[in-house]
């Protein structure tokens, strides 16, 4: 007996929204080719979803260990500030000592290392100091934007660097670059967790932390790993956000995206109580959320409504995932 995957409801909701658009939104599935690059609403969704998709990939692993990482939005702001400082090299910036020229590779690497350090910091607080994840990552969520302002000297740093900007704005093989970045990160994380035993260990840790230690799983290292992965993902998301606007805004980059990521994970069928996780489900969840946003925007509905509609769809999917709710829907059996 093979049970249905946990993301089946998110997929159903996504198909429903897409079907709705097929009939109600003219030109929704239209795709144009311009300069060897694809344009259209669907492509736009896959492009726009990238930052949240990256955050939620890492968040999936953290949530599977019974944790949560609230700092990812602030980490985006920090890595964005680092990248913008290295590119624009404004007067008096504390990173002036580092000169990477216009090597996109080194600048991106610096952004990813920023994310990695933040992830290690979170991981150490959770695994060594044994601070509850929600509190431990709240520290960086609050302090991170301050650090980002320190790096950018309280300014919104703007720059003009076409090579770096192409991270968000360029295209490869017809598809926007952010799409490929998500594909790459998803593939690496999938291979890391499912082709090795890390996935089983993460699920064991989330399912029963005491038992996980008793069977010899190195729970400390595992926690450090999942928070580091999330940090690197957030670092990359920060690169995309900075490249998109060709600048770094410490106050607004990635604001509230940690909440979108948590929503994407739970809509995708990974329980906040830890244990079983599904990266595929998370990606479906993230795409569902972005499809909703795009649908509402292209239909010219007031943007205020976006959040309410999103919340309603999330509620519907979560209710369908709840055995208790499904049980209530079932017709009552008459006692013999």
């Amino acid at each position, binding site marked *: 007996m093979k049970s249905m995957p946990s993301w089946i409801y998110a997929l159903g909701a996504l198909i429903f929204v897409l079907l709705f658009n097929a009939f109600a939104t003219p030109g929704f599935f239209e795709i144009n080719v311009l300069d060897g690059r694809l344009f259209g609403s669907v492509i736009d969704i896959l492009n726009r979803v990238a930052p949240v998709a990256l955050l939620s990939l890492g968040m999936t692993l953290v949530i599977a260990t019974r944790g949560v990482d609230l700092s990812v939005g602030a980490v985006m702001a920090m890595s964005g500030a680092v990248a913008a400082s290295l590119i624009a090299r404004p007067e008096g910036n504390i990173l002036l000592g580092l000169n990477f020229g216009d090597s996109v590779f080194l600048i991106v690497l610096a952004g990813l290392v920023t994310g990695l350090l933040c992830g290690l910091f979170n991981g150490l607080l959770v695994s060594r100091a044994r601070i509850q994840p929600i509190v431990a990552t709240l520290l960086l969520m609050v302090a991170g934007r301050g650090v980002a302002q320190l790096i950018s000297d309280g300014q919104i740093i703007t720059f003009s660097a076409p090579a770096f900007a192409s991270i968000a704005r360029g295209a490869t093989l017809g598809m926007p670059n952010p799409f490929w970045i998500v594909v790459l990160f998803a593939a690496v994380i999938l291979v890391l967790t499912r082709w090795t035993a890390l996935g089983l260990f993460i699920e064991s840790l989330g399912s029963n932390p005491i038992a996980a230690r008793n069977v*010899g799983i190195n729970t400390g290292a595992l926690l450090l790993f999942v928070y580091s992965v999330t940090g690197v993902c957030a670092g990359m998301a920060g690169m995309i956000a900075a490249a998109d606007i060709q600048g770094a805004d410490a106050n607004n980059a990635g604001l509230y995206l940690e909440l979108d990521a948590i929503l994407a994970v739970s809509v995708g069928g990974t329980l906040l109580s830890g244990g079983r996780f599904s990266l595929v489900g998370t990606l479906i969840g993230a795409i569902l959320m972005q499809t909703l946003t795009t649908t509402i925007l292209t239909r010219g509905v007031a943007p205020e409504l976006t959040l309410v509609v999103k919340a309603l769809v999330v509620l519907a999917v979560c209710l369908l995932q709840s055995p208790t709710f499904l049980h209530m829907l079932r017709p009552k059996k008459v006692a013999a």
Partner: protein
Amino acid sequence: MSESTPLLHLQGIDKRFPGVHALKGIDFELETEEIHALLGENGAGKSTLIKVLTGVHAADGGSICIEGRQIAPRNPNEAVTFGISTVYQEVNLAPNLSVAENICLGREPRNVFGIDWRAVGERTKSALNRVGLRVDPQRLVGDISIAEQQLVAIARALDVEAKVLILDEPTSSLDQDEVAQLFATLRRLREEGMGIIFVTHFLDQVYEISDRITVLRNGERIGTFQTDELPRIELVSHMIGRSAESLEHGAMASHEVSGHEPFLTVTNFGKRGSVQDLNFEIRSGEVIGLAGLLGSGRTETARLLFGIDHGTEGGYQLDNRSAHLTPRSAISRGVGLNVEDRKAEGIFPGLSIRENMVVVAQVKRRWWQRISTAEQKQVADEYVSALQLQPPNTDRNIENLSGGNQQKALLGRWLAVEPRLLLLDEPTRGIDIGAKFEIMALVERLRLEGKSFVFISSELSEVIRVSSRIVVLRDRRAVTTISRAEANEEAVVAAIAKHE
């Protein structure tokens, strides 16, 4: 007795689960002033019958009458209002609330200011008196022993006006004094007119306390018997469906191990505040039994040897080297621990039986060399058939298994990595008689292959049966060692009870 209406009367109770006919037309009667033992192997239908009775499951057919009135409880709370209270084997209390709060939880007496704490205190006091438990009602339940928690759970069940009290394996974590205390309580409740259904695996206790016995096997009622008219050997053969003599087949071979040097030695080993003065050595092909009352330090000894806790005094040598183990390094050096509390510290709920069984093998193999799903199936299936685990489909969630089968899956987890020393903490707790014998036979078979065990059990007869030597613990100290030749129940009990 039979001419009057019974207190509780079940007729033709039928229950099907997908693929399983769990209860096949069960009839059952419980009189007032009766303690009625409900016996059967794992999967016989005891738990299902109790869940039907308490409204956890709805019956597919049949009727339940209490004092002649037909009832159909839809959930445990409704069952309580009909006068049916239940105490489960796995204690269901809130560890971070006080004893008083747990007893009154969900039905707190109220006054104009909210909860009437004075009344809570009085009710708690009388409830605790009724079960003869003396603890401070303000203590957190998580801070008292499991045995005391069990009595608190019973006190909670009695706090409501119960006519029928169901005890599902209440004694599996109690020591002898506590069992005696519980039985005194049960006798008093019987005199007060209560009907008590008692589920247990301890046959001694059945004969000590019950008036009648009903035996279930494979979802059918085999029969109901007057306890004093049913010889023990017949009871066992009713339960397992084969002649009891076959159980005793294959008397244990000699435990003489010569020519082997001990690979594990502890000298004055211990941890302050935990267990102390441990002195013994283990050779390959030896079973060290740990005997002692609950709280005497048996589990603590296992945790020290496995490296969950760390010794603060004395020496612990493995392979003639001083050992500072963590569970991870213990496993890599061939030591395993099958924990006592399998629900809290053993199983991975939500994961499959297969994943639960291969996880230690995977840890040993290192994370970058994943055991393929096909290989996992092969390993799991091997131990499923070796341990006769039911049902054999290892893709299912381990939570779907009965307690005894979960225990077998956890044993399989360790056997799959072939440890040279396996610490078994209450491996037979809460499992049926047939499986107990299977596990003891398994220990003996592996011992003959040169594997070693530390065997911990509350049932002295089991410890005596399997052990090469018995280390007796008293008040968290190892007090004496009894050789196999001198080991009998009187000798061990004397050692446990002796005063310095």
